[in-house]
């Protein structure tokens, strides 16, 4: 088994095929989209492949250490051009192919007009633990 992170972006991913802001959908389309996402996670729980899923608020800021005895420096809110992660799902699957297959399904979530969004998702393998047998 291998863990993969599926990353969804508010900004910074290549444009989706069906690229309409969510507040311009109908309320029913919004509901259908949310249902699709929930059902997807529930299905992965049943197949034993779901690990975690979280959504992030669009707000945030940069923070860095500024030296001994000084408060951290902050910079924010984020510039309009910054990549912005919207949320993630962590899956534990048998292969890279399975991870790609699931990401494809997630990207097919319905959007405006009830049609799939075809949004770009980032698929990132976790670095694994050191195996017990290495020779």
């Amino acid at each position, binding site marked *: 088994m291998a863990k993969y992170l599926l990353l969804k972006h508010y900004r910074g991913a290549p444009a989706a095929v069906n690229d309409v802001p969510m*507040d311009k*959908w109908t309320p029913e*389309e919004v509901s259908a989209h949310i249902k699709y996402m929930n059902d997807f996670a529930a299905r992965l729980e049943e197949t034993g492949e779901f690990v975690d899923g979280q959504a992030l608020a669009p707000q945030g800021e940069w923070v860095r250490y500024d030296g001994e005895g000084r408060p951290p420096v902050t910079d924010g809110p984020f510039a309009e051009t910054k990549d912005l992660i919207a949320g993630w799902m962590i899956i534990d699957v048998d292969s890279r192919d399975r991870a790609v297959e699931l990401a494809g399904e997630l990207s097919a979530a319905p959007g405006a007009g009830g049609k799939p969004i075809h949004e770009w998702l980032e698929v990132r393998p976790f670095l694994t633990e050191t195996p017990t047998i290495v020779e």
Partner: protein
Amino acid sequence: MNETLLRSLTPSVIGVLVRRGADFAAAEDAVQDALLEAIRVWPAGPPRDPKGWLVTVAWNRFLDATRAEAARRRREDLVDAQPAPGPAATADDTLQLYFLCAHPSLTPASAVALTLRAVGGLTTRQIAQAYLVPEATMAQRISRAKKTVAGVRLDQPGDVATVLRVLYLVFNEGYSGDVDLAAEAIRLTRQLAAAYDHPEVAGLLALMLLHHARRAARTAPDGALIPLAEQDRTRWDTALIAEGVQILQTALSRDRLGEFQAQAAIAALHADAPTAAETDWIQIVEWYDELAALTDSPVVRLNRAVAVGEADGPHAGLAALAALDPSLPRYTAVSAYLRERTGDLTAAARLYAEAAYQATNAAERDHLLRQAARLNTDGHT
């Protein structure tokens, strides 16, 4: 096995161990061990005297732990000093534990965790699941909390307001995992009300009951939020409402108003309206005025602006809103709602979308998105 009964015995069993000479932290650990043991063995053979069983097992665990620490002399002293089992001052023990677990030296998160374990009798795993943190993290939080209150004497009365704030936090967290925190908060507040006669304790209990009564109507089958005005009122729990109203009336008759009684009074007025249109908004505004005088909270003033909007029309609501800080949580959402009611749909749609962007939880964000979507797509759906 009745797990609620088992858990309700927790504080008094801890009290017995403390009176026998155990310090709070060790007593609490021993009782937690006894609870886990009870969950394991009671289903096969429930004891005739559940509390006696728990006291015996917990006391043995405590002695084992003391022995393991090689504090032999101290243990022997304790065994010698052990009083004959007699009637326990249960209500007092329980009350002292509420105060200890909500001690002002604790952070809110620590006070909540310690209360759920030592007063509520939940296991560390259950508390961790409810708050979506790893079990080891929650165990550490509880252990640090116990160190923080180690020097606090159990016989000092505390400020009940700190206890009420902790219970309110537990209730407001709703529920996730297999522990229903709202129901647990109600159980703990009931138990507190039985041990401590105070109008604000009654006020908080009434507030919880009145909100809990609407729970089934508050979310659609798909998890979407249903605002108060659109809820199916036949799904409200009338028994809980009746109980809440009765508790509130008794509390109010004592003429010692506090913020929880005032909040409960507002919830009772909503519960009393057969339809949203029949809500007595004038009285609700008056209660918000009382509440603002008691707490001076900006959130109260924001909710008051909503009520003014209903009582005197959206323009009056917007005027009340204009006096508030726009960076308040939900300010934009309230503004969107009032704008829509004035007929300014373009501004309302823009504000709903902005409010969705600022929302701090997913259900509220989705709800606000749907509102923006509704106004943006009206006429061409």
